[in-house]
């Protein structure tokens, strides 16, 4: 089996879904002739034509809004937002429309759209190219939020996202696009949304992470008996897998790249408090970015949680 990077994996997921289902169309800035600023859609215009791989005007609100309209008509649009911070203009379309149309119409309509966007620090991009605000999408009822961490799971998760009847925000860790490779089966496999993956078994600490940070978390485990869980779907997350692990380990560390305050780590902490309090031998610790504006390139390494910081959290929960 050939190895592939994250860009290839996403590209193949898109191509296979477009092949499988004529209703899948791609909208985005520079995704056509240019093949996307990260080259994620390279070759798709040539293969599927300009009617299904559409270079749009510079119009994030318009793209997501049009995608909702296309979905109402029966298409299954996948929108690429060039960088996560540029999704903000389209938030109303996601929150007030995509997320609600199924409920508002009591099931008559849905908005099965996927909004893909690279997120996170680590590519030395300009300002506003490194945001990681998954939590705000998680907070909105009706939206699903997915973050792959490897080429393998990216392909399987994206396919599920495209087939899902609900709107999905699909966040691609930009730092991982070309830095890791995994085996990538040619078959049509999917990874169900709402399913977390135990990527390393362990007995003393449950470490939960996703995307880029999952790899840092793995790095940090040396010398600790850590069970590492790749959350994959942040909303709705896989409660069972989490609870089973915590019942075993009694200690939890959540690692994410976003700032901590009201981040997804807070939800995980509250969840464990409510549903697994008696199993907890130490507080759920969060390792996150600080409560500061995401810095530019020179300081970005200081913003991202470091391996040492994760190890300190492991030590802390072990010595509690």
């Amino acid at each position, binding site marked *: 089996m050939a190895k592939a990077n994250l860009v290839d994996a996403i590209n193949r997921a898109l191509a296979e879904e477009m092949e499988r289902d004529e209703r899948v169309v791609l909208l985005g800035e520079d995704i056509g002739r240019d093949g996307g600023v990260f080259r994620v859609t390279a070759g798709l215009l040539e293969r599927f034509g300009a009617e299904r791989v559409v270079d749009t005007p510079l119009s994030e609100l*318009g793209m997501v809004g049009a995608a909702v309209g296309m979905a109402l008509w029966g298409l299954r649009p996948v929108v690429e937002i060039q960088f996560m911070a540029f999704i903000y203009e389209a938030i109303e379309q996601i929150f007030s429309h995509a997320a609600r149309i199924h409920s508002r119409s009591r099931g008559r309509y849905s908005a099965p759209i996927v909004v893909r966007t690279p997120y996170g620090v680590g590519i030395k991009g300009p300002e506003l190219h490194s945001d990681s605000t998954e939590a705000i999408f998680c907070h909105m009822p009706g939206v699903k939020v997915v973050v792959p961490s490897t080429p393998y799971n990216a392909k399987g998760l994206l396919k599920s996202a495209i087939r899902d009847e609900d709107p999905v925000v699909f966040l691609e860790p930009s730092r991982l696009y070309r830095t890791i490779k995994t085996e990538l089966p040619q078959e049509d496999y999917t990874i169900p949304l709402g399913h977390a993956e135990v990527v390393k078994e362990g007995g003393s600490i449950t470490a939960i992470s996703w995307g880029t940070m999952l790899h840092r978390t793995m790095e940090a485990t040396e010398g600790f008996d850590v069970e590492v869980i790749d959350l994959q779907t942040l909303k709705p997350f896989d409660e069972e897998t989490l609870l089973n692990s915590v019942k075993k380990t009694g200690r939890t560390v959540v690692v994410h790249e976003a700032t901590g305050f009201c981040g997804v780590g807070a939800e995980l902490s509250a969840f464990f408090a409510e549903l697994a309090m008696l199993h907890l031998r130490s507080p759920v610790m969060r390792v996150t970015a600080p409560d500061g504006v995401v810095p530019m390139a020179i300081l970005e390494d200081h913003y991202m949680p470091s391996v040492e910081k994760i190890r300190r959290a492991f030590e802390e929960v072990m010595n509690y």
Partner: protein
Amino acid sequence: MPYRVIDSFEVRYLQIVDEAGNLDESLFDGFSEWLVRSFFERLVLSRTFNSRCLSLQREGRIGTYPSIYGQEASQVGSALALDAKDWVFPTFRESGVLAALGYPMELLLRYWMGDERGMKIPHGMNIVPMSIPVGTHIPHATGCGWAMRLEGARAAALCYFGDGGSSRGDFHEGLNMAGVFKANTVFLCQNNQWAISVPRTRQTASRTIAQKAFSYGFEGIQVDGNDIFAVYRATLDALNRAKRGEGPTLIECFTYRLDDHTTADDASRYRDPGEVEEWKKREPLLRLRLVMQRMGLWTEDYEKEVVKHSEEVVDSAIEKAEAVSPPEPSDILIYTSHTPSGRQRRELKEL
């Protein structure tokens, strides 16, 4: 003048029947007796529905309600230009459109009672739940009309919004993309001169809404929105052009909101009653009646009958709507996503 002129544009205006009932004979064709009667009957029906809603609200039987009084020609005239395959994207102020399209009135009433089931659009009707955040549905109509074009459907999307809606980014991005992709979409702005208390002149410094189409490379026209013939004709033409793949049109229906913004509003705080009186003289039923008289289609008895029938229809809808049992609290969670999450399942038990 040192500058060279490289392009020029004209803003056009359409009126077929004026306030006094005079009609432009050259334009007055294609209106069969059947169609003209439909205009009248649907207009009366929507007006009846509307005034009943205002009473129901006063009696506390429905919630806040936005009146369409004065705008019926824009609503009914445009709605009757639609085909069954076309899609409709209304705002909250489109009772007249929905009534004209035969939307079940008991559902509409349920909606105004505060029941989502009122926007569970019956299958076969391509109507999207009314948009509450102003202007935000405009890009949906673009996407829908674009999808129609991509799939070669002989259908169009008709999007309603107000003068206020034209100020929103959604309007701009929606119309711009529709222009670029030649979406099968018709954008119909009911310029009723007010956005709650903000007059049209303060909404935008452009003289018309119609001319905003020039920014997007397609046609914009202003239509006398109280002339149901002009509205019908302009909408039909635009829908047909869209269906032929000739791209979108922006129609500005120049009309007037004769009532308060909603039942929660008191327009006397900000609006000159004299202005309202002036516009009352131009309300759409007056001139429709005059035209029908001339065509020999109107008698007092006929109108009485139409009114009576409309009242019966609305009353029976009210009865039906009020007989419906309230929705289940679990609906809150059941419809949020297609399958409930673990958390939602726990929460369902507590509701």
